[in-house]
């Protein structure tokens, strides 16, 4: 098992290097030279520029610059943001925390809702309940995330039941820890619900199809023939087999955290990675964008790895391989 995981990790390293190199190239061919821009900015001291030039080789060719960057990554130096004048790691730490909180919240909610619904839909296949559920699932799949966000914001602007934008209210400073937590959660609710709404449809459909396929397999018929009670067939035999493909999808979902939440974050004003990267891209903030893409890649690796491990835990066939 350990060897398997290590093996997978090693396979990812060249991919990660390739990906960062391509993004480095993409940003380098963008117009707008930040180095000269940097020199012209009176807010940045010449020592800082000199320091960065040494560390990142800013005046050297692209390929060399890339190796400088790579060298710094291994000493956990992600560089300095050109537009914020603070280390990138500092910027990302705050924003990444918000994005991860939002994603975990919405993923949890999506799964807890759509898995039971999917099972229910499969059991009631071709009946009126399934038709209604599938109809709504279709709508959910086809509604763009940003449009759901706008509809939810419209609804909230009419009713004002939930706070919108930011992570904290005005009274946050002198609130107790518990109140702070509740306040944070309240702000999380709007973007979280939007992401959940846009995720339920496709997950429901996947789960329903998986469960249905399992229910049609011969061993389920055998179980019926042996007189095993229906609920036992569903939850003891079918569910455990139907959930396996979902675990892979769970891994994908974790790896898609960054990309999936980005637009909704921008629309609802949740200070996560989305807005940061958008601004970084628009202002050619090289190291900021690089670091975000790197984190995206790492998340993908972690997500896939987690899926592999979970799959090995639930499915002995994978474990034995």
């Amino acid at each position: 098992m350990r060897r398997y995981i290590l093996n997978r990790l090693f396979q990812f390293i060249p991919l990660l290097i390739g990906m960062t190199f391509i993004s480095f190239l993409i940003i380098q061919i963008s117009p707008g030279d930040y180095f000269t821009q940097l020199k012209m900015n009176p807010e940045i001291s010449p020592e800082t520029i000199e320091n960065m030039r040494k560390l990142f080789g800013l005046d050297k060719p692209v390929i060399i610059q890339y190796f400088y960057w790579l060298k710094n990554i291994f000493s956990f130096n992600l560089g300095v943001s050109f537009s914020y004048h603070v280390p990138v790691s500092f910027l990302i730490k705050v924003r990444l925390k918000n994005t991860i909180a939002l994603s975990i919240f919405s993923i949890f909610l999506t799964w807890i809702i759509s898995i039971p619904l999917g099972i229910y839909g499969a059991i009631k296949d071709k009946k009126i309940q399934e038709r209604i559920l599938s109809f709504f699932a279709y709508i959910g799949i086809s509604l763009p995330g940003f449009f759901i966000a706008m509809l939810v914001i419209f609804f909230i602007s009419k009713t004002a039941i939930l706070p919108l934008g930011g992570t904290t209210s005005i009274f946050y400073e002198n609130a107790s820890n518990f109140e702070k937590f509740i306040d944070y959660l309240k702000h999380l609710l709007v973007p979280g619900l939007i992401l959940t709404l846009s995720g339920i449809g496709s997950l429901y459909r996947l789960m329903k199809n998986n469960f249905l396929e399992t229910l049609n397999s011969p061993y389920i018929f055998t179980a019926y023939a042996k007189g095993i009670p229906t609920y036992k067939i569903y939850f003891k035999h079918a569910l455990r087999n139907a959930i396996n493909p979902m675990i892979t999808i769970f891994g994908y979902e974790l790896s898609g955290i960054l990309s999936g939440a980005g637009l909704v974050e921008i629309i609802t004003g949740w200070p996560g990675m989305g807005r940061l990267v958008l601004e970084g891209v628009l202002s050619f903030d090289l190291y900021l964008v690089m670091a975000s893409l790197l984190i995206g890649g790492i998340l993908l690796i972690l997500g896939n790895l987690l899926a592999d491990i979970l799959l090995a835990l639930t499915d002995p066939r994978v474990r034995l391989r």
Partner: protein
Amino acid sequence: MKKILQRLKKRNYISFISLWIIVFLYFLAIMADFIAPYPYNKQFRDYPLCPPTKIHFFDHNKKFHLRPFVYEIKLVNPALNQYEIIEKICPIYFFVKGEKRKILGLFPSTRYLFGTKQGKIFLFGTDMHGRDIFSRVLYGARISLSIGVIGVSLSFFLGFLIGGISGYFGGRIDNILMRLVEIFMMFPAFYLMLALRAVFPLNLSSFQIYLLIVVILSLIGWAGLARIIRGMVLSIKEEEYILAAKALGISTFKIIFKHIIPNTFSYSITAITLSIPGYILGESTLSLLGLGIQEPFPSWGNMLSVCIGNLRILSNAPWMLIPGFFIFLTIICFNFLGDGLRDILDPKNW
């Protein structure tokens, strides 16, 4: 073709209807010059954020009019965008005269499908510059609907080319190409889209931006396709008729494009239909963030961009969300159609 339509109608009526809705939407887009009552950039300064005009058959005396009419309206409170109805009846006519426009950019015409002689008719209301949203939705459909088709074709071309080569030749070429595909699939799609957009200056001409969006979206979309095509080619190339073709001395290029790729078509038709929504979404996302199609040209995405972070407009003028419904309608129709096509093209279901 006719057979497919018939089977679609019989097996999956919803996707049959979806197909016709899609055809209708494309028809609207093509004929926008004739159907739209106003040009997309015509600003009625006296009617900012005007709510959708109601079409009446009965006037305030409960008298029935055979010809539908609208009431003339007047802005009474510019600060709050409040409008008042003036009890003046403006009948709606077909083929009314208006400003000169070129239909399809070819035939100059002064008559449009419908309109009023006095007063204004804003079926979907107006935006804050007083531009008719109905007309802009029709013109915007041209961009939003065509980008899907063009983007998908480009992606499929790349996907077929790289997937086909990779699957057919195998070995080292396959290895290198598939690593490249994996690298592309590792990027967070949303951020890759932003980064690619940033490579190019913001102030391009609208046609350049259009091409740019197509290229960006295809660059993001080809990788997944290439991988699937490769898998299919791998299995098809073992078939005996390929061996026969090889024995006959047909060139490799011809074998790939004439004998292998056509065999993946039943899959690709479904995949094309189901991936068009992704391209429409990509265009709307870029335009929504102000990185895509620029004003005054409308696209469904950039018409929605005022709704971001602008709570007052959003809550006072919900008709600004109408382009979003069109995006939704298009996507759901493509999804229904794709599922229907998968149903009937799958040999298991014959």
